[in-house]
């Protein structure tokens, strides 16, 4: 079955009604199980499960340590271009926004890559907006080829591609894809993506699967929290992760929980997700999918991220900059989103060690 059909079956369920009727007794029983079904998972997202957060956390921590060890993998983003044809209401690169548009030359990319490599990081995530005329697949491939000498793992977070385009990028040296559906609810998806190629819900939804088919080593999914009811969104996200994990066992599946924070003068989230709820969804996901990696970016504040180190997270960004060329000639508030945790790679390393975990800078090999 294609993922979209599977998702539609679930989207017909009344998730609000189900989760509001879950009892503490049910949660207790679920937490004694070794494997968690999808219905159990949904129950763990319920308001009733909030009371069992500590038990969930202990179990989630144990499952994470057993599967991943006491380690946190580190990476940093490198923005290649902020040109974009899309009008997405929540994004700083929105075509309607007035900001300095820039696409780095391949030489500039190398220069910034060299600066990042000096921090010791060997994993990088390169990003663009969606403007094929400015940042084509060939351009991204040329950047990757240049960066290969500095990094042992290069992931992309760019517009959705066709399978053969993913293959082109894999051949150039890409081994990971991050692509967020942003919002799984198709009605809200259509509302927040006002114009541009990203408006095509299905093309975006199937992009991770096309990357798996092309032979991508790692695929990282995400729902942008704050656009719709988080329980339905996280449930859809987890189903997507499980679908891909079962169908493409050779690809490592991960998920991210990017959360829109209310900020002055910027897009206001429609739904506020509290710290407690964010912790609850990470714990529930860890118990449902023990082998799936969990990434927390610098959108979240430093002290909150530190507390998450022991709670099921496996990957974190460090020394981030969401502005094109920001490391080359300073930042001008033209980033894609605001960074809350501004710590350097060295500071992140020390924070992770302080919590009894090992920061890992390198976890793959360049051939």
């Amino acid at each position: 079955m294609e993922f979209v059909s599977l998702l539609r079956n679930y989207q017909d369920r009344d998730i609000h009604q189900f989760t509001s009727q879950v009892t503490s007794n049910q949660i207790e029983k679920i937490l004694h199980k070794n494997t968690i079904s999808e219905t159990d998972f949904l129950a763990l997202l319920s308001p009733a499960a909030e009371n069992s957060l500590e038990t969930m956390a202990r179990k989630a921590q144990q499952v994470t340590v057993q599967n991943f060890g006491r380690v946190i993998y580190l990476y940093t983003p490198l923005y290649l271009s902020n040109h974009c044809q899309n009008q997405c209401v929540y994004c700083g690169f929105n075509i309607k926004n007035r900001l300095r548009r820039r696409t780095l030359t391949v030489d500039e990319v190398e220069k910034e890559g060299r600066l990042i490599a000096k921090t010791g990081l060997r994993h990088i995530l390169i990003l663009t907006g969606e403007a094929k005329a400015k940042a084509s697949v060939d351009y991204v491939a040329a950047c990757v080829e240049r960066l290969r000498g500095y990094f042992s793992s290069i992931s992309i977070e760019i517009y959705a591609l066709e399978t053969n385009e993913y293959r082109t990028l894999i051949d150039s040296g890409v081994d990971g894809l991050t692509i967020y559906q942003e919002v799984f609810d198709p009605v809200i998806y259509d509302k927040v993506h006002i114009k541009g190629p990203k408006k095509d819900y299905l093309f975006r939804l199937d992009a991770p699967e096309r990357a798996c088919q092309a032979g991508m080593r790692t695929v990282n999914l995400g729902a942008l929290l704050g656009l719709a009811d988080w329980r339905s969104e996280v449930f859809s996200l987890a189903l997507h992760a499980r679908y891909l994990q079962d169908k493409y066992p050779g690809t490592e599946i991960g998920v991210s929980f990017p959360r829109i924070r209310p900020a002055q003068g910027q897009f206001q989230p429609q739904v506020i997700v509290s710290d407690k709820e964010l912790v609850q969804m990470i714990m529930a996901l860890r118990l449902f999918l023990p082998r799936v990696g969990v990434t927390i970016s610098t959108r979240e504040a430093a002290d909150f991220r530190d507390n998450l180190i022991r709670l099921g997270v496996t990957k974190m960004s460090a020394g981030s900059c969401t502005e094109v060329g920001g490391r080359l000639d300073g930042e001008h508030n033209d980033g894609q989103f605001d960074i809350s945790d501004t710590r350097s790679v060295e500071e992140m390393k020390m924070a992770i060690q302080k919590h009894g975990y090992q920061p890992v800078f390198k976890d793959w090999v360049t051939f």
Partner: protein
Amino acid sequence: MDVLKVGGQEVHNRLFLGTGKFSSDAQIPDVIKTSGVQVVTVALRRVDFENPQENMLNHISRDCILMPNTSGARTAEEAVKIARIARAAGCGNWVKIEVIKDNKYLLPDNYETLRATEILANEGFAVFPYMSPDLMVARQIRDAGAAAVMPLGSPIGSNRGLRTKEMVRILIEEIDIPIIVDAGIGKPSEAAEAMEMGAAAVLVNTAIAVADDPIGMAEAFSLAVRAGRIAFISGPGTVKPHAVASSPLTGFLRDGDGK
């Protein structure tokens, strides 16, 4: 002196150590020292030769025998490339082949593992293939020139013990190169059990690395492996279905002339 001769080396301590999952690589020297471990496996994917500060090889004593592994490889070709990188970087000629295409259960791909073994053994590597215990494949791996066969006890990191006991027992009986039980061993008693059966060595990572006290746990494993080995050499008594009385009922038949 009981010595394991394998891959052109002499090994005195039959506990092999895996190095992933530690909360700090800085724990590794003490783990090695206290347990007396000699063979240490390291995922090449984690080694950064260009960054001396983050290079985990610095934490492994030069007296140890390094067994780089191909963790992360999904095909024989990737495993071969990783092995060659390790050797070119000065990590010696031992290699543990790990080819895993299944990210959910982390079970090895025996077919790809066999292919990688054939290629690397031909190139002069001492090849230690990690595999699902299967007699036919184990024979082919041996015939391809492997130094040892490394069947899993249960899935990696599961700490579930020697669930594949009967299959491993068959490999020990039938395969005339060392059988090293790798993965899934969660407790020292399980390591002892594998050794009592005649395993040549046991490789442990998760159970030591994620213990509250990895140094203490490594020592416990080392002692258990040694105890199991001595028991195997000493020839444990056979298991009988009933109690055997020390004054047997038919003892009188031996007392006289048996009439």
